[in-house]
């Protein structure tokens, strides 16, 4: 029973990792842009939520109403005003520019909010749980996080495969130059992809901030988990990313149960194991 519990908690944690990863995966999928600042943008969203909560006193989950549109707009502006200029046949410029962005965000947050660790207070929701048996219970919060991940990934799937914008994303992903010749304005499409990615990242950021403490320096580690979830799941597959997040979460949870110092190590080992056995990930979709 103890192990069932450990695996269940790990799987729920995986939902959070999948949320970290979904935006990263979308940006890479549409424009082959690896966003090194993704983790810091998640943390930025958490601080935005903190400001909203402090200013209005609303429940942290309600702050999403403001934070999601804000990050969506920021994403659009960031892509249109900066990242579009880094895209080309060279792979290095977007890496360098987003790395620089990561440093800037971390330091700006440090300057504005200090290095103190913060948390969004969600009241009773933090400890409320659902009993599944004598020794098994799941917290409402982890359950909500996992559900949010599943719903967001399902929505992204519908967007990609059932809507004109999704088809534009996929056409651009296959061949951006050709897509332009058939009327797709790729600068706008790229900007929408980043806007969506940051909207998802802001949900991830707020849920992260309710679940654990955060400070300006934790972005890069979130980026690492996001990368691992994407690679384990296989490039181009959003459901694969959710599976990747779950595998990562379960590995950390099991590792942590064996020895409290082993949780992060166990996650990385699981990632390496998948890389060795299935270098293209478990559910790869991209052909090239």
């Amino acid at each position, binding site marked *: 029973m103890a192990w069932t519990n450990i695996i269940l908690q790990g799987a729920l944690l995986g939902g959070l990792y999948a949320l970290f990863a979904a935006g990263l995966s979308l940006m890479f999928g549409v424009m082959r842009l690896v966003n090194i600042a993704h983790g810091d943008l998640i943390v930025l969203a958490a601080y935005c939520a903190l400001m909203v909560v402090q200013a209005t006193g609303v429940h942290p989950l309600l702050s999403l109403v403001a934070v999601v549109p804000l990050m969506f707009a920021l994403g659009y502006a960031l892509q249109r005003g900066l990242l579009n200029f880094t895209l080309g046949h060279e792979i290095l410029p977007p890496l360098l520019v987003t790395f620089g962005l990561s440093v800037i965000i971390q330091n700006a947050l440090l300057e504005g909010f200090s290095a103190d660790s913060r948390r969004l207070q969600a009241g009773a929701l933090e400890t409320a749980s659902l009993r599944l048996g004598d020794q098994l219970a799941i917290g409402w919060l982890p359950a909500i996080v996992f559900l949010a991940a599943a719903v967001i990934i399902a929505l992204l799937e519908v967007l990609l495969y059932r809507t004109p914008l999704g088809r534009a994303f*996929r*056409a651009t*992903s296959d061949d951006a*130059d050709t*897509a332009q*010749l*058939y009327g*797709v304005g790729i600068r706008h499409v790229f900007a929408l992809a980043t806007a969506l990615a940051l909207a998802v990242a802001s949900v991830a950021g707020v849920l992260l901030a309710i679940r654990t403490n955060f400070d300006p320096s934790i972005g890069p580690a979130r980026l690492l988990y996001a990368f691992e979830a994407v690679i384990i799941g296989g490039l181009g597959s959003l459901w694969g990313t959710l599976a990747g997040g779950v595998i990562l979460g379960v590995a950390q949870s099991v590792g942590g149960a064996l020895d409290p110092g082993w949780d992060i190590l166990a996650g990385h080992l699981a990632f390496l194991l998948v890389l060795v056995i299935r270098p293209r990930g478990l559910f790869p979709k991209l*052909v090239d």
Partner: protein
Amino acid sequence: MPPLIRLDEVCKSFGALKVIDRLSLALGEGEALGILGPNGAGKSTMFNLITGDLRPSAGRIHFAGRDITDLPAHRRCRLGVGRSYQIPHPFGGMSVFENLLVAAAFGTGRKEAACYGRCVEVLERTRLMPKANVAAGRLTLLERKRLELARALATGPKALLLDEIAGGLTESECQELIATIREIHADGVSIIWIEHVVHALLAVVGRLVVINFGREIAQGAPDAVMADPAVQEIYLGIEAA
């Protein structure tokens, strides 16, 4: 009436290499124009300049009386410039129908639901209907060439630029393709066709322009152009090589 496409003394250089050298050219409304020229003459580069893949180093390009020299490619597409590539570039991960849907919706700026009819019509015209739900990456060469044509047609072009679409086809496939292109032309779409398969070209176009080293060598009625000594020299030169 102004010509549909007009190039005014257009130049394009890549470093020291002049690929297009003060080229002027006009495509009349409803005209079918054939372009001949040896490899490296600048024919595909000329198409890239018209579609907006490349910007000219000098000169202006007009479409339907409007200066489009500084417009991005997707805007030109919406004005009515359609193009098929010599080497097919399908959206490989998407179905044939989706390939057309993207072109039809974004190429015209209309809603997808308003484009289904157009896509079906194009699928039938290009004989791709049986492959509508196949991933474009799985098509054969002939089918890919048809898809290039179909996708360009789906955008509802006023001018269709065909880049060596008959190359590599068997004789009967080529005849089918000629019939399809004639139908498209009969519907009022103006055509510029670059082709090495001369007999296919002559079956469709009313006027020929021969290009070499980025300049016009000869132009006029197909028979007269083919009889031109300068043209024969270029072509006999190629044949002998």
